[in-house]
């Protein structure tokens, strides 16, 4: 291990560089901030997950009244949605993994504005605090979409949740701003644009969306708060406003937000597949540019959420047409990943397994997306369980698989120890099988016409709902098991090498875990990060 030779075990690294609670809470080190994000996000994931299980339990039997009453159920799905979207999937990869990895990948000592970085963490937590506070008051029952006029009329504490989401939005903006400047200004010598790892490209595209779209969410939420406080009436038909305009405002942010969630995951997959196939990435430029293609198209397709909302037929025509083009850059990525495996030397470590999981689930999510982009088909399927299944395949199958792949991939770098490979495989199968059992039946339920956000359903839907509930239990077990073996790995896993996967991006050129300033000497880059030569097929982690 030539890279590792300089680092003596037990040497100073970012985890033991300084000690005590305050050294974490007041840290400016992007790695520590990344970890704080990670654990906060996982905490919120647990909360969102509990709500998901409660929802599924309520739906175990038809007719309602299985666990809770309708009002409580409505709060459950609102909380599940709002927590998962605003507090989990949006920050999960950029703010947690991205914060940790991006500067190291660029060969920088930190992000461009470390103080701002810490501030955005606390802004995020403040937003989360407000949203969670509402839980202990009267909750919120609007669904995470806050559609007017219901969100104006309901007497639940929507205001607090709106305020929380508004604040958390600023955290997202500031992270994006920080990343863009970091990528522009802090690349190591020799790291030209065309040598940038694809994860950085993905984060770059993501940051652009965060910076351009999130302010619109901010103003939308402010206007909605003002509807409730000052009755401004812009979205309230009683006062002459237009409730459909609210949907435009909301989806102008929330559709691009879907790509805030998925693009970084795609970046992670683009990193993992060449490493574990021991082959250069197929079509580097195409993948890099397609990230930008997706980011751009993200902004011109929001109306496909509103095909039956009462918007004009012209708008439906335009948005359906534009939406079709999302599939093109997405297809380019998927085909390029598959192409990368061709004539490779494939290692089956957990990160690669999760990358396969991603490909399977995301392909299904993507293909069913074409159904929903097609005007006539969407009329029947929208607002049914088909949509629920579709976006879970994309968000869980995409973002969460990407997050888990990335966590396994960078686990040795973050904590300097390995997790148990066998345990990871068991966890993988639990989660993937559980996921398919939970959500595949929902496609059929949706096609049969079961609407979403239903507390009670008609008896003919019982069987598939039961299967779905059972599957959700399996996912739950899978995640608890994963948390367990991660914890074991952090406490007592085998010591990790600096570069256990024999990968070529810059984060593997420093010790595991990295020192406080990431590199002892500023690295100089001389080649692109996917230079896997034909004989370079072995992987230290698999040689033990």
């Amino acid at each position, binding site marked *: 291990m030539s890279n590792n030779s300089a680092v003596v075990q037990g040497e100073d690294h970012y985890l033991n560089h300084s000690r005590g609670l305050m050294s974490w809470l007041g840290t400016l080190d992007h790695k520590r901030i990344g970890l704080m994000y990670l654990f906060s996000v996982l905490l919120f994931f647990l909360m969102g997950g509990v709500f998901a299980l409660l929802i599924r339990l309520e739906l175990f039997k038809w007719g309602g009244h299985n666990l809770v009453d309708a009002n409580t159920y409505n709060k459950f799905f609102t909380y599940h949605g709002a927590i998962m979207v605003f507090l989990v999937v949006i920050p999960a990869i950029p703010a947690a993994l991205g914060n940790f990895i991006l500067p190291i990948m660029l060969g920088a000592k930190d992000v461009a504005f470390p103080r701002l970085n810490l501030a955005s963490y606390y802004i995020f937590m403040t937003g989360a605090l407000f949203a969670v506070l509402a839980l202990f008051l009267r909750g919120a029952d609007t669904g995470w979409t806050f559609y007017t006029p219901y969100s104006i009329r309901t007497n639940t504490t929507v205001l607090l949740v709106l305020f929380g989401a508004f604040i958390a939005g600023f955290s997202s903006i500031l992270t994006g701003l920080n990343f863009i400047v970091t990528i522009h200004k802090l690349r190591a010598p020799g790291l030209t644009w065309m040598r940038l790892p694809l994860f950085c490209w993905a984060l770059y595209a993501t940051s652009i969306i965060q910076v351009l779209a999130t302010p619109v969410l901010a103003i939308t939420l402010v206007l909605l708060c003002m509807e409730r406080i000052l009755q401004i009436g812009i979205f309230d038909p009683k006062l002459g406003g237009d409730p459909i305009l609210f949907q435009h405002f909301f989806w102008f942010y929330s559709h691009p937000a879907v790509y805030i969630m998925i693009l970084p995951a795609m970046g992670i997959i683009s990193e993992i597949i060449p490493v574990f196939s021991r082959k250069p990435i197929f079509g580097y430029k195409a993948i890099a540019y397609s990230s930008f293609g997706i980011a751009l198209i993200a902004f011109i397709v929001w109306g496909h959420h509103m095909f039956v909302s009462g918007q004009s037929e012209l708008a439906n025509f335009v948005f359906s047409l534009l939406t079709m083009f999302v599939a093109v850059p997405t297809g380019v990525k998927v085909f390029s990943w598959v192409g990368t495996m061709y004539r490779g030397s494939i290692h089956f470590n957990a990160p690669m397994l999760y990358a396969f999981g991603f490909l399977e689930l995301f392909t299904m999510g993507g293909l069913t997306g074409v159904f929903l982009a097609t005007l006539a*088909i969407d009329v029947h399927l929208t607002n049914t369980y088909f949509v629920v299944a579709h976006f879970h395949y994309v968000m869980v199958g995409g973002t969460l698989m990407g997050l888990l792949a990335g966590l396994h991939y960078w686990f040795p770098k973050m904590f300097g120890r390995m997790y148990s490979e066998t345990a990871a495989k068991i966890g993988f199968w639990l989660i993937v099988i559980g996921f398919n059992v939970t959500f595949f039946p929902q496609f059929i339920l949706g096609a049969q016409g079961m*609407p979403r956000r239903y507390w009670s359903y008609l008896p003919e839907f019982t*069987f598939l709902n039961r299967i779905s509930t059972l599957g959700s239990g399996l996912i739950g077990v899978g995640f608890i098991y994963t948390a367990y073996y991660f914890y074991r790995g952090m406490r007592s896993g085998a010591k990790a090498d600096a570069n256990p996967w024999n990968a070529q991006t810059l984060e593997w050129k420093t010790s595991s875990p990295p020192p406080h300033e990431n590199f002892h000497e500023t690295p100089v880059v001389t080649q692109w990060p996917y230079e896997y030569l034909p004989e370079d097929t072995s992987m230290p982690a698999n040689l033990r």
Partner: protein
Amino acid sequence: MIQQAFAGSVPLQGTEVAVRWDSLYNFLVGLSIFFFVLVVGSILYFIVSYKHDSKKKTQYITGSHLLEAVWIAVPTLLLMVIFVWGYSVYHAMTQAPSDAYEIRVIGKQWLWTFQYDNGRTTVGEVFVPVNRPVKLVMTSEDVLHGFFIPTFRIKQDVVPGMYSSIWFTATVPGKHQAYCTEYCGTSHSAMLAKVVVLEDHQWKAWNQNKEIGPIPEAGQPLPSKTQVAGTLGKKPLIQNISLVEQGRQVYQSKGCVACHSTDGTNKVGPTHKGLFGTQVELANGKFVLADENYIRNHIEYPQANTVKGYNPVMPTFKGLLTESEMNALIAYMKSLK
């Protein structure tokens, strides 16, 4: 039950547009299966063929412009075909013929009200003629709702302050299920309706306020007497069943279940279990005996009879229930011990 769950992943075809919809849907399903097998199949093939072997070398490939051009061009072409096809079906769904029979629909938390040209009004059930274009002109009194008939493959949000419309030509007589598909609060999942497609003679009779006899669920034969007793209350009014059973069906179809329960739990309104014969405290502090007169009076003048502890949100059903429906309903509520 399993059979029921998988017997066709889409509901029966209740309109002509549903037939067109299904062919496009099936095309998409086929296409998706093809691409899914292509992607996952090649992954599996590569996994098996190129599993790590320390003796084998990899091949240094960084891309192929030809392949990239192919997998940009082919999906783009296919997507354009899908778009044009999808739009043409959609266009057929939205452009109502000018001679369509019009019905006014009002959504309100959590009831559907339908008004007809002949002056009749129905709640929870909309009566339409078979094989004749029908246009629903819809608005909402409070928040967003969505009107969705799966068997017709149509759906449209109902927006307060503006009017939206959908149309259909039903081809299958019988009762079709309709749902509210835009989240509207507490009893969103109970905001159901039945689309009753009538044969010509039934339609004529219904228009003249005459009895039209039992109507089966769409695509199913009329249930026999014994079946009725064992099923779940989604069956039509049948004259030769008991008054209580009729009342139970009224209770379901007129939307009482949206706010009231029969199992002792209080929802938006109080439960009706064991209500009959008890003293009820009203919001104005008065106590009244829950007898036949009170029930009738409450249904017709709910605002004056709001029960203490509940909000005065119940709409009046005055004029929406026939005398026989009212009697059946009272009989049913008496039976809820």
